[in-house]
């Protein structure tokens, strides 16, 4: 097997699957320095967003530890070939599971977790809100978004992805999707948000 260490600018251009394959090949070739370099790009590339996502879901004092656990689990599974689908999606599924596991453990050992509400008044710490079903409810936020997205057809999902999450203007979305008008984009985005609000808080429909 021939393994060729890559310079940084080429590592930067690799997709996740290619980067993981590079790390695996570097290991198999005994090029551990190159494998480490690949790991640096992969871990650094996702760690901050994993931290950010967990900071929405769990108390601040456990975010770093849980982010570490999620990254290690996801990379190990990708490395072993036991992960499912593309790495980024798999990683964020593991992030969700890690947050769920945290609350399960906290239920078994109540004193382990300092609930966000215990930080009330402390600067920079998110308190008990937002509450969907208590703190554990925040764990499911992304899943709720995905469920709501699934209620739209493929073309409309693409509109929502581009307009809401990629923050393209309605005009830019129309440039990318045949037969779409600015008004249609606005209507689809509005329907998505209405459905999302209703799913997150069924009482919200009464407020509209």
């Amino acid at each position, binding site marked *: *097997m021939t393994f060729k260490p890559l310079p*940084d600018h080429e*590592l*930067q251009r690799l997709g996740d699957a290619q980067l993981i394959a590079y790390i*695996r090949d570097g*290991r*198999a*070739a*005994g090029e*551990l320095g190159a*494998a*480490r370099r690949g*790991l*640096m*790009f*992969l*871990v*650094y*590339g*996702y*760690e*901050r*967003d994993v931290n*950010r*996502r967990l*900071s*929405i*879901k769990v108390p*601040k004092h456990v975010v*770093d*530890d849980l982010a*570490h*656990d999620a990254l*290690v689990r996801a990379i*190990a599974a990708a*490395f*072993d070939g036991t992960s499912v689908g593309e790495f*980024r*999606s798999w990683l*964020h599924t593991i992030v969700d599971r890690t947050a769920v596991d945290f609350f399960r453990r906290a239920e078994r050992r109540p004193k382990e977790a300092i609930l966000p509400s215990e930080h009330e008044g402390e600067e*920079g*710490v998110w308190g008990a*809100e*937002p*509450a*969907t079903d208590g703190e554990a409810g925040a764990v499911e*936020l*992304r899943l709720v*978004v*995905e469920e709501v997205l699934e209620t739209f057809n493929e073309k409309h999902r693409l509109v929502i*992805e581009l307009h*809401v*999450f*990629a*923050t393209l203007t309605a005009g830019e979305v129309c440039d990318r999707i045949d037969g779409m008008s600015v008004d249609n984009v606005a209507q689809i985005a509005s329907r998505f*948000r209405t459905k*999302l609000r209703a799913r*997150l*808080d069924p009482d*919200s429909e009464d407020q509209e």
Partner: protein
Amino acid sequence: MSDVDRLLAEYVAEHRAGGDADPREFLTRASPLQRTELAALIDAYLARAPRQQFDEASFRGSTAERTVDELERAIAGQAGLWPALLPRLRDRAGLKRSELVERLAAALGVGDREDKVAGYYHEMEQGLLPAQGVSDRMLSALGQLVGATTQTLREAGRALAPTGEGPAAAPAAFARRAYAEPAEAPAPAAQPPRVGEWDEVDELFRGA
């Protein structure tokens, strides 16, 4: 544009500009009624965000670097994910390595051979001890000290087994390299004695 739209747009702009983009800071700016919706949208946006560009200066000394150090020892060694798991479990249990070793030796009934236990345990954390040789009795005792099940520790030790093709994928090749070039050289005093009679401590750590 609603408050949620505006805050999401501001969040996305800060995130793309490489700023802190701390979700909690933005959530505190939303009204309680809108907070859950904003949290869901930020969470879903982050799960879609591409891998961040590597930055050497930011990486140095970061939590990402520590994770990479642990994963490097894991992929270079023979102990699966133990280098990424055991130090964290020990930290979370609030135990220094010397304290854990003392309690572990006592729990195993080999308190009079603490130095030897220390050497083996150090090898476990560094990924230098073949995981398959470690006995269930040892893992059970260790698990009770750090709050993990025997099964969790066993599965972590089995992870990352080399599966690729090529000459360097052979475990023996890694074993030689790992022992010759440990990522963090153990203190001489912590090296387990490899000479002398096989005893109960060897059986616990290498006899399975």
